[in-house]
Every structure is written in structure tokens, then in C-alpha cells.
């Protein structure tokens, strides 16, 4: 894969996310978008990054005691890495199915937990890797390629 090039990122930022902090949930995503806009990143890429980041951020807030989000900006792509010390995902393939959800009622009352988070992250990324170990936590790496003029999302839209 071409994503292993040794060129250092143009920008790197680390955000911490506090679990169950609903008051601030979503603020990392809006900050990430502000940084990307300031750097002149393509608007469609900023939009997709915002959606991927928001879904990932809400997963950390709703399901884990906390974690962090790393933003890496390269000339040809963005990477968002989400890591948490949560309960982990026992069956990643199952969790990626649209509509599958383990959300408690209170999360649904907030308008989340319809089981579209991971599928939506996948749809707006060009590559999504999920590594999870039950009892230890989850790491998700999303890659969004730059310089494309798409309106319908990432490679998820072309996958059969």
C-alpha cells in the first residue's frame, strides 16, 4: 500500500476525549475541521473528515471511559486515529453491519446509537482499519485521500 511512505506529516495534533462528557462531545471534530480549513484542505475532504471524526468521537464518549484522537495531515491524505480504553468490540465484522447497535437507551435518546457509526465512518473513508481486544480497548485508523473532487463520499460508496 502507498500509505507507508516515510514522509512525515505536515501537521500532527493529539486531542483527548473524556468518556460520557456529553457537554463537550463533538468539539474535537469541529476543531479538526477548523484546523483543516485553516490549512487550505479541500472542502469535501474537510467535510468527510468531520463526519468520520464525529462518529469516532461519539463512539469514545458514549461507550468508553475515554481515549484520544490523533490527526495527521499529509500532502496526499489525512489520517484520523481513534484509540480508547473501552470494553472493546468482540465481533468487529458484526459491529460494522449497518443497524447493529449495542447502544443503551440514554444514547438513543440523544439521537445516537442507530448502528450507523462504523458504516458511516467506512463510507466516508478511503480505508478504515479496526483493531479491538475485548477488555482492553479499540484502535481505529481512518485514511482519507486528498485531491479528489468527489461529492458522494469515499471508497465506501463504490464498494459492492
Amino acid at each position, binding site marked *: 500500500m502507498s500509505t507507508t511512505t516515510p514522509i512525515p506529516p505536515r501537521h500532527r495534533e493529539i486531542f483527548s476525549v473524556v468518556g460520557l462528557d*456529553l*457537554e463537550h*462531545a*463533538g*468539539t474535537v*471534530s*469541529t476543531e479538526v*475541521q477548523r484546523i483543516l480549513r485553516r490549512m487550505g484542505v479541500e472542502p469535501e475532504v474537510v*467535510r468527510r473528515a*468531520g*463526519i468520520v*471524526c*464525529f*462518529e469516532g468521537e*461519539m463512539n469514545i464518549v458514549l461507550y468508553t471511559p475515554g481515549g484520544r484522537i490523533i490527526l495527521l495531515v499529509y500532502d496526499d491524505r489525512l489520517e484520523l486515529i481513534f484509540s480508547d480504553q473501552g470494553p472493546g468490540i468482540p465481533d468487529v465484522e458484526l459491529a460494522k453491519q*449497518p443497524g447493529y447497535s449495542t447502544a443503551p437507551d440514554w444514547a438513543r435518546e*440523544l*439521537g*445516537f*446509537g*442507530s*448502528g*450507523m*457509526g462504523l*458504516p*458511516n465512518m*467506512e*463510507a466516508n473513508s478511503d480505508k478504515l482499519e479496526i483493531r479491538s481486544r475485548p477488555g482492553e480497548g479499540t484502535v481505529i485508523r481512518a485514511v482519507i485521500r486528498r485531491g479528489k473532487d468527489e*461529492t*458522494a*463520499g469515499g471508497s*465506501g*460508496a463504490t*464498494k*459492492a
Partner: protein
Amino acid sequence: MKLREVAELVGARFLTGEDLADREVCAGFAADLLSDVLAMVREEGVLLITGTVTAQVVRVAEVMNLAGVLFVHGKVPAKPTVDYAAAAGIPLLATPRIMYESCGILYAHGLPPAKRKPLPYEHNHPHSSPP
């Protein structure tokens, strides 16, 4: 359609962003599930019509670059949420009308529905994108 016309048509008041009342709204999308907004709205400049009044509504509006949010059912978000929207430049409107009625009025006056993104499991589905 401008936000000002939206407010007049459904009898809504601006909670914040009245200075942006001339902002153009390209389409409407109604949902209480923010997951649906994040997964389905594909355009920018859409008006979100919702009965959900949590702080996350405004964050979603910001992330999705929505034109504004119309709260229905007479519900209004808490002051910190309104303040956040004011700082972020997201106009918030509130109407005592119910969601069904608000949508009907706006639709009848020519506000088109937002184009919906197909969901991952419905590619090639004939009804995934409205005509």
C-alpha cells in the same frame, strides 16, 4: 428559500442568528436521529428540522455545514447550546408547530427535500436516491 421566509412560514422565532436571516436554504431534512443526519445528508446549506434539542445538534450542524436548525414541537435547547451556536454562526429557529406540520408548510412553499445518500447496504437500490 431564505431563513427569514422559513421563520415567517412556520411562525418560528430566531433563538440566535437573526443577523443571518438572509442566508439561503437549499433543501430541508427532518430527523430526530443525529446518526441519520450524519449518514444521509450530502449537500451543504440544508435546513435541519428536528425535535432533538441536545448540544450535539449544533455540533452536527457545524460539522455538516448546515444552513440552520429549526426546532419543532415548541422545544428549545438550553442556553449554553444557543450560546455555542451563536459563536459558531449557526442560526437556530424554534416553532411551536409539530414536525409534520412544519415540514408540510415548507414543502408546500417550495423548499425541496435534501438528497439522501444511499446507505452502505442499498447500493444499486432503485429507491436509494429520490428522483
